[in-house]
């Protein structure tokens, strides 16, 4: 759906994008991560035709972006990080304005407005002037605007940054609903727990290049740590010495009935651990391999560790 090859962008002497490549498949939610100033918004502005680029090849929905911007804008939706609206307009008037720009007729505009206001929960506030909306309300109105034209591809720049936890959950549900309708979503966010919940694949942009691009599942598998968390039914201090005698065990931390077991070799441990633990008479409540959170992975990637 989106193919980007060797994309470069320079502002003055500062090269923001140093040749990035990525491909986004149809119907996929693609998480685009990076520190502040990494070039995420610039990439989005380029892909939505709002900013030019120095070098690179971009194809969206099978068409080269250069020379097809106006055509492609009909199949694209974009929600900027801090969407700005005419403060003197009412929510419903703004949607009507967008509907007319998008070429809809009166009846379709009325139907679409009703549908979208309900979707973003702004039906009651729609007759109020936007100047009086909170940031979260503006963000929701922005989302309604971005999906107005039933886009095939939706670009969301920090869409949940201004929302409360309830609003964030609702937004994630909306995004998942759009994915069900086969919309391809390019999502930039700092809220990594959101990415973990909804993204199929992620890319980490750092210092103008993509340092990592992987499916979330593969990534978490790659970054598994050789640490087991074991919860016993009672105090497990007596188990420390027998376990340390195993050659594949590195060290053990015990806190009452909770044990953290560090191993040298995860594969070897996987084969032996259950067998060894079953020899103890103390029952086990839970056993899990500690997974790196996306936050851990992100920090490792951007710090080069």
């Amino acid at each position: 759906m989106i193919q980007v090859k060797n994309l470069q962008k320079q502002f003055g002497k500062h090269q923001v994008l140093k040749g990035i490549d990525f491909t986004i498949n149809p119907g996929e939610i693609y998480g685009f991560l990076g520190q502040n100033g990494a070039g995420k918004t610039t990439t989005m502005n380029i892909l939505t035709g709002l900013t030019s680029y120095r070098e690179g090849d971009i194809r969206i929905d099978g068409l080269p972006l250069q020379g097809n911007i106006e055509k492609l804008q009909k199949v694209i939706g974009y929600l900027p990080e801090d969407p700005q609206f005419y403060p003197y307009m009412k929510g419903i008037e703004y949607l009507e304005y967008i509907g007319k720009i998008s070429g809809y007729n009166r009846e379709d505009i009325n139907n679409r407005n009703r549908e979208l206001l309900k979707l973003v929960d702004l039906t009651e506030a729609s007759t109020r002037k936007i100047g009086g909306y909170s940031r979260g309300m503006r963000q929701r109105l922005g989302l309604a605007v971005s999906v107005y034209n039933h886009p095939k591809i939706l670009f969301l720049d920090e869409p949940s940054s201004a929302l409360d936890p309830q609003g964030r959950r609702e937004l994630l549900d909306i995004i998942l609903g759009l994915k069900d309708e086969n919309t391809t979503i390019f999502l930039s966010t700092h809220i990594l727990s959101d990415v973990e919940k909804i993204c199929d694949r992620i890319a980490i942009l750092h210092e103008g290049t993509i340092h990592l691009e992987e499916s979330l599942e593969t990534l978490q598998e790659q970054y598994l740590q050789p640490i087991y968390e074991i919860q016993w039914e009672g105090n497990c201090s007596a188990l420390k010495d027998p376990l340390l005698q195993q050659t594949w065990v590195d060290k053990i931390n015990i806190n009452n009935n909770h044990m953290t077991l560090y191993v040298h070799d995860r594969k070897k441990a996987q084969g032996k651990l259950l067998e060894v633990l079953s020899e103890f008479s103390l029952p086990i409540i839970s056993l899990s391999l500690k997974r790196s959170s996306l936050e851990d992975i992100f920090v490792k990637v951007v710090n080069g560790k």
Partner: protein
Amino acid sequence: MKNFFAYFKKEFLENLRTYRILILIITYILFGLMEPIMYRMLPMILESEGFDPAMMGMMDTSQQGLLRSYMGNLSQIGLIVVTLTIMGTLAHELQRKYWILPRSKGGSATTLVLSKFLLYGTGLVVATLLGFMVNNFYGRVLFEYTGLDISGVLQGGMLFSLYFIFLISLLFLLISIIQKGIPSVLLTLFVSFLIFPLLNNFSSLQNFLPYGLIEESAKFFFDWSSLAPVLGSTIVLTALCLFGTIRRIKTMEIL
């Protein structure tokens, strides 16, 4: 065309709620009203302050003189009010990024600029003609003038407003380049108050400067022999300014 109506309706709504054109019309009418009243009261004020009321003889108190004095005020204080009132309409689109969402939906820079220009241009013509008529009406009432008919007043007002319309296009161009309202206003005023009067001293340029429309409007009739080159160059320069504005907004980098 459908797109243009959407933009024009939005501009109209903006004006209904921000009162920009209403402010212009009230300003023009107030200036138009104040001028004859001041001229009428000036001899009494001079007398009460101990001056000789005959000093009024130094001023042109004819019907045309009254209108010219009104035009003088408009081209100075009036222009400041006009540029300050209108600057926000385009500057906010770019500076406050109101333009991003419509543009991401395929919004056209040409339609954006032309709808604003058409609305404010029309507003300025209406405000100027109303101001001229009010000035002329009170001039007739207070001084019992009879010489200049309404058609002459309207012809003068029309040419005068065309000069302001050119300045709006210049203001739009400067805003699209600088992307800030106040510096663009100051530059527009600088051009009108300093550059044009300076260039007007060169006889080869005189006939082609939009500034010449002020002199033409003071004749209160369309003197085509001298008006044609000024009008032609003003139309060309206005079109160039608008073209430059549209081009600049189309190629503008959104950061």
